[in-house]
């Protein structure tokens, strides 16, 4: 049986040139609403990709359905706009079939966590090396404004005129509960941070989950402004940096410290606490990642962003490949003759 490489052997190999962001812009008109946060996410991906030196033709963006899921159309790579909620499953098949490709998923809070929740937790546990960007705008954009599984309790939307009765998911906790090996949170309006996350995710071997706060200026405008706007941002966001203490505030004068397992915000100004009292972020600490992820559920705390968790563990497709190789080593490459004639047969004359 020929392997894909062989089938493509006549194709002239293009030497990997130095790409620019522009090289990743497809010829399709971008059809998001003017002002939509999706534009920034697209831009950051296009900015980071050139650094990675992955040949364009080895990149695939897979998506489901939603505004965010239009993403692949705008990337000048291979792109697959799937059906609602199934991007992770499609991407799983593709990556297992073709481990040499760099496979990315663009999904929304509805696509990825409502209808697609099951595929999402399963890709996390399997640790298939797919990079999942979840555009969290806490609303169903494409269907014009129903609440989503990340919308806050009591949110008034078209489908919840009296307020959403659902307690929302914390996407990071869901991913961690499913034992994702890479978990991060970025924001459309913090390009640098987002680029950094995308870069790290790209380099991670295994499922890399990125929640991105994304403003839907039509149906849920300002949902994250506390965390993204200049005036409020510094006091309401704490950026996680591996090995560094959790400091935040306009003046860098506040920090996060643990009381038991509960993070609390403390001032570094009044001399009661110093940097030494603060949590030192450790991307490899599973339990810390849970604590930090849960901070969004707790009052009076800044919102952590950045890379919460990043550990390496075997990927699903590596094990599949290993089994195949070891079987071939043991039994030899399968042939049609072998298949048809192995085991018990008899001859009639």
């Amino acid at each position, binding site marked *: 049986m*020929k392997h894909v490489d062989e089938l493509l052997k006549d194709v002239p190999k293009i030497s990997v040139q130095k790409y620019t962001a522009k090289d990743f812009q497809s010829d399709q008109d971008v059809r998001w609403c003017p002002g939509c946060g999706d534009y920034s996410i697209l831009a950051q991906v296009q900015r980071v990709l050139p650094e990675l030196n992955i040949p364009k*033709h080895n990149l695939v963006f897979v998506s489901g359905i939603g505004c965010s899921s239009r993403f692949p159309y705008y990337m*000048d790579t291979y792109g697959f706009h*799937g059906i609602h909620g199934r991007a992770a499953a499609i991407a799983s098949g*593709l990556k*297992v079939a073709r481990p040499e490709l760099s496979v990315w998923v663009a999904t929304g809070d509805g696509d990825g966590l409502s209808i697609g929740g099951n595929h999402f937790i*399963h890709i996390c546990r399997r640790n298939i090396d797919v990079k999942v960007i979840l555009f969290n705008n806490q609303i169903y954009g494409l269907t014009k404004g129903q609440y989503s599984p990340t919308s806050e309790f009591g949110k008034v939307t078209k489908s919840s005129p009296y307020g959403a009765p659902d307690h929302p998911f914390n996407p990071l906790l869901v991913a961690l509960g499913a034992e994702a090996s890479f978990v991060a949170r970025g924001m459309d309006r913090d390009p640098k941070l987002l680029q950094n996350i995308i870069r790290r995710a790209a380099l991670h071997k295994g499922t890399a989950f990125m929640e991105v706060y994304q403003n839907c200026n039509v149906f849920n405008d300002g949902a994250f402004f506390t965390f993204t706007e200049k005036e409020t941002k510094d006091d309401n966001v704490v950026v996680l940096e591996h090995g560094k203490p959790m400091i935040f505030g306009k003046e860098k004068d506040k920090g996060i410290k643990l009381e038991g397992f509960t993070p609390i915000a403390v001032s570094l100004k009044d001399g009661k606490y110093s940097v030494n009292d603060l949590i030192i972020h450790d991307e490899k600490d599973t339990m810390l990642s849970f604590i930090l992820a849960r901070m969004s559920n707790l009052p009076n705390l800044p919102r952590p962003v950045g890379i919460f968790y990043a550990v390496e563990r075997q990927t699903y497709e590596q094990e599949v490949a290993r089994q195949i190789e070891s079987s071939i080593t043991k039994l030899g490459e399968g042939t049609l*003759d072998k298949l048809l004639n192995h085991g018990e047969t008899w*001859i009639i004359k």
Partner: protein
Amino acid sequence: MAAKIEKLDEVTIRFAGDSGDGMQLTGSQFTNTTALLGNDLSTLPDYPAEIRAPAGTLFGVSGFQIHFGSKEISTPGDTCDVLVAMNPAALKVNLRSLRDGGIIIANRDGFNEKNLKLAEYEINPLDDGSLDKFQVHAVDITKLTTLAIQELNLSTKIVERSKNFFSLGMMYWMFSRPLDSSIKWIQEKFKKTPEIVEANTRVLKAGYNYGETTEIFHARYEVKPASLAPGRYRSITGNEATAWGLIAASSKAGLDLFLGSYPITPASEILHELSRYKNFRVKTFQAEDEIAGIASAIGASYGGSIGVTTTSGPGLALKTEAMGLAVMLELPLVIVDVQRGGPSTGLPTKTEQADLLQAVHGRNSEAPIPVIAACTPAGCFEAAYEATRIALKYMTPVILLTDGYLANGAEPWLIPSPDSLKEIPVKFHTDAKDFQPYSRDEKTLARPWAIPGTPGLEHRIGGLEKEHITGNVSYSAENHDFMVKLRQHKVDGIAEDLPHATVDGDERGDLLVVGWGGTYGAIKTAVENKRKEGKSVSQLHIKYVNPFQKNIGEILKNYKKILVPELNLGQLALLLQAKYLVPVIKLNKVEGLPFRADEIEKKIDELLK
């Protein structure tokens, strides 16, 4: 003292006992040995939905029927000649399938008070004369088994589990079969526990010797090899054949096979089988559900593998949305539906043919998909191969319908030579010049297969309507109308590629019996029997359900009456009437069981009298 040996043309034996009694194993051992002897044969396993229903109960009975002969065998047999009943429940449930004068071999030890009560017998049927019209042999199988291995000092549990080999041994003796193949199998299977090898072998021999030494059996039978076409044979079930057909196609096409599947009875064995062929680079992805099964297969197809997904009715229902996506994407994909009794969970371990309309019509909007149906267990190989070939040639999802009866049934199979299989030429598109993802091959209307990893062909596909040629998203009214019709046209056009359908029997006449799928053998037997009686009746068996072969309409015109027997309420009948506007007579049975040939014969008689 050897009993006299009678020659028989064909025999049907049914092994029946508790789910825990190993009847499926006994049956398949008998099958293998019989196949090796060169008989033609057909089998019908029949087991309950419970894994191991409480011992002795009526619903816990597991059966295995084998019909073999020196002539061509097409069905597992309408009635059986020999019934092996390990307990009263097995007797009760299966008695109605035993012909008058047939042989009953009963495990007398199993007919104890408790079991009689569980089987709702007031009096022991072995004693009350109610079985007088049969030849009853009550054998103390449990006791004899225990005696045979008492010196091995094994637990009663192990002894219990061995007793089916005693029955097997008796049957080997009765039908003059050698023990060596089963002994070899026992040695292989239990190689880690030598005491079990020893026990089972002893018990098997004890059963054989029991026939040889005692005088309770009046006769012994010989069934000569059938005059099968010369060549190398193997015994194969429908599910195995399906798996192999897929691997064979992958091998011929030079592409990797990717199965995305979620277990479901009676399709799971295809997953099991394919998961064994790692050195064929077959990748099996046991997905979290049926939707992920098909979605992952589509992802793999997109990546240049042969994406396959296997399931049964309820699973097919879950896959329909994704099937629509595959239609829009025009990627090759093989969807195997091993039909079972429904609706809903229905009768999960029983057979049925009622997913035909779901396969043909069960998707939102106009989403045409070719549908192919396998007719015999071994025929699943060819059908799976053909489904894959069409999927690759036309860049389309293809549905392969088999059913529980075909899936579990076994028959001897003349192994094809690899060269005799149709070529499956596949070319990925690699030329970046003027590449258009929805341009088309003039003849097949297939679009190019341009897989990720190919430099310069970066492009985007998806479930929104595609613009002709460019494949860009298009909301244009005219384009949509065009594309909807084009997709239909492409699938309809596959008919050009298909061999003409042929009729078994006369080319015109009083009655044509039209079937599809697993009813092939029963219809064939019925029609042949009636033809022998001089009736003007022919058989047309449809393998390509969508699109129909081009000459089907012509054929139908040549008969006064058309009979369509189906294990559903008339689904092929509906399609035929809709398409050809010819009235058909329906024969429908939805019992979870295959047709018996005599049921069809009766109907033929009725129509031709």
